[in-house]
């Protein structure tokens, strides 16, 4: 039993899934849209990064930027197809759920048709070396994935705290009705949010492809994990999503070491059910200091 190995795995997974969960959580709370096409954006940006590594340059920065930009583009496509036309129609959340699910199914089949079923692998972004942190041996890809996810997430959260657009997005997360009263355009903010969350999916895709591969359906499992973390954390809460990601990442690393990889989803959903039984609003219910409405 190597605890440092379990811990480093847990942290890496937490960083990657947390990135996805924050993306899903932001979309839901600001636009009222559960983005089922997140897995498709994830896979699409993996292919974007792969194409860039073949055609432009295999430099880490280029590959990562290509993944993030493709993700942002994918987010904009989903926004154009599934948010702009229907966001003020009756029953929008359900319609959006179906629309994004349709985009996900069509998109994944299109990727399968165009790129074929064989998995592609991205170049190693972070080299091949080991670091020794307080006696814990960490491989370069895990360290690189954790650090870049944390850096980018911190940048985005700082931007949301300090900029005017961030203020608009946060205002819309808390009260969309009041947001329109103070002159915040729902559709324009929708573009920002979808591009932002799409780029988060792109980042997660490039990072996860360091361990796994890029394949047409590679986005489904990460999306399910991201969505369940967002639920555990309490939809709409960024700190909740971070804590949820740590819990789920720890669970995944522990289960796969102690019981075996095939039990990961079972323990994960048992854990989620347990958390939601005790705390129906997720972990965020514990953190929220402000009264609602």
């Amino acid at each position, binding site marked *: 039993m190597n605890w440092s190995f379990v811990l480093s795995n847990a942290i890496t997974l937490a960083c990657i899934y947390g990135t996805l969960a924050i993306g899903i959580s932001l979309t839901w709370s600001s636009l009222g849209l559960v983005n089922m096409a997140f897995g498709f954006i994830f896979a699409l940006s993996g292919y974007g990064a792969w194409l860039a590594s073949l055609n432009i340059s295999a430099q880490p920065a280029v590959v990562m930027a290509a993944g993030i930009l493709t993700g942002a583009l994918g987010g904009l496509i989903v926004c154009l197809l599934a948010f702009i036309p229907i966001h*003020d*129609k*009756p029953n929008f959340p359900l319609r959006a759920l179906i629309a994004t699910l349709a985009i996900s199914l069509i998109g994944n089949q299109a990727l399968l048709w165009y790129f074929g079923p064989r998995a592609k692998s991205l170049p190693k972004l972070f080299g091949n070396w080991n670091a020794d942190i307080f006696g814990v041996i960490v491989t370069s890809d895990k360290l690189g994935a954790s650090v870049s996810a944390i850096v980018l997430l911190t940048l985005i959260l700082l931007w949301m705290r300090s900029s*005017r657009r961030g*203020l*608009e997005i*946060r*205002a819309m997360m*808390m*009260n*969309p*009705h*009041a*947001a*329109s*009263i*103070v*002159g*915040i*355009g*729902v559709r324009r903010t929708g573009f920002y949010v979808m591009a932002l969350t799409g780029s988060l999916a792109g980042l997660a895709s490039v990072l996860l492809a360091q361990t796994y591969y890029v394949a047409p359906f590679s986005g489904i499992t990460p999306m399910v994990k991201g969505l369940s973390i967002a639920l555990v954390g309490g939809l709409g809460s960024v700190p909740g999503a971070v804590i949820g990601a740590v819990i789920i990442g720890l669970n995944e690393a522990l289960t796969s070491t102690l019981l075996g990889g095939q039990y990961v989803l079972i323990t994960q959903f048992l854990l989620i059910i347990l958390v939601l039984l005790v705390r129906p609003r997720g972990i965020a219910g514990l953190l*929220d*200091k*402000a*009264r*609602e*409405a």
Partner: protein
Amino acid sequence: MSDVARNAVLDVRGLSAGWGPLRVIHDLDLTVFPGERIGLVGLNGHGKSTLFQAIAGLTGWQRGSILLNGFEVGRTRSQGPGRYTHQIVRRGLALIPQGDEIFHGLTVEEHLDSGAYTRRAWKERATRKQRILQIFPPLTKLMAIPVGRLSGGERRMVAIGRGLMADADLFLVDEPSLGLAPKIGKSVVDALMAVELGSSAMVIAEQNLGLLEGRVDRIIGMHAGKLKGEASASKSLMGGHR
């Protein structure tokens, strides 16, 4: 457009509005001129709030003409409440809604910032916040506190302050004293009366006629979705009722 309407801040003609099968506003006409402070009085459920929401494009459906600074902002709409609200707001409307409609997790300061939606207002937001703090001194100590933790009266000050941050030409204030202790409600209305309007106009919907009596330029009564009776000398209206 008539000559009268040309320099009006707001000119409403033949407005009907409502929710689903319910028609709340019936063929209503209203003209508001620059510099006016108008009281809109009427009982609960007679359409004061719906009139404000129709002007902001927030009702379920509406038809009729609404000219804001000469721009047509009323449309015949059957759905999509709020779809055009931000555009109407950018034309110079500040709606201070009933029940405050606050962002419970944002701090007081962020709230005031969010009200400064025009480019100029955003640049001048520091000086404007100072102005709001002069109107509502109790907010000075609360600037860094999330609004969800404030009391009802403090929230109302924040909501009104947010509305006053912009360079609006038309302020629509919906029931500023609703749900507040009489003393606090009165101080909120006093603050609204102290706002210098310049060339903009303010319409205050209020059930408590006594709070507005003698302090506004016109008082308009509202009954069953129509405007009923108007008094420029508001005291005569009070006299008629007693």
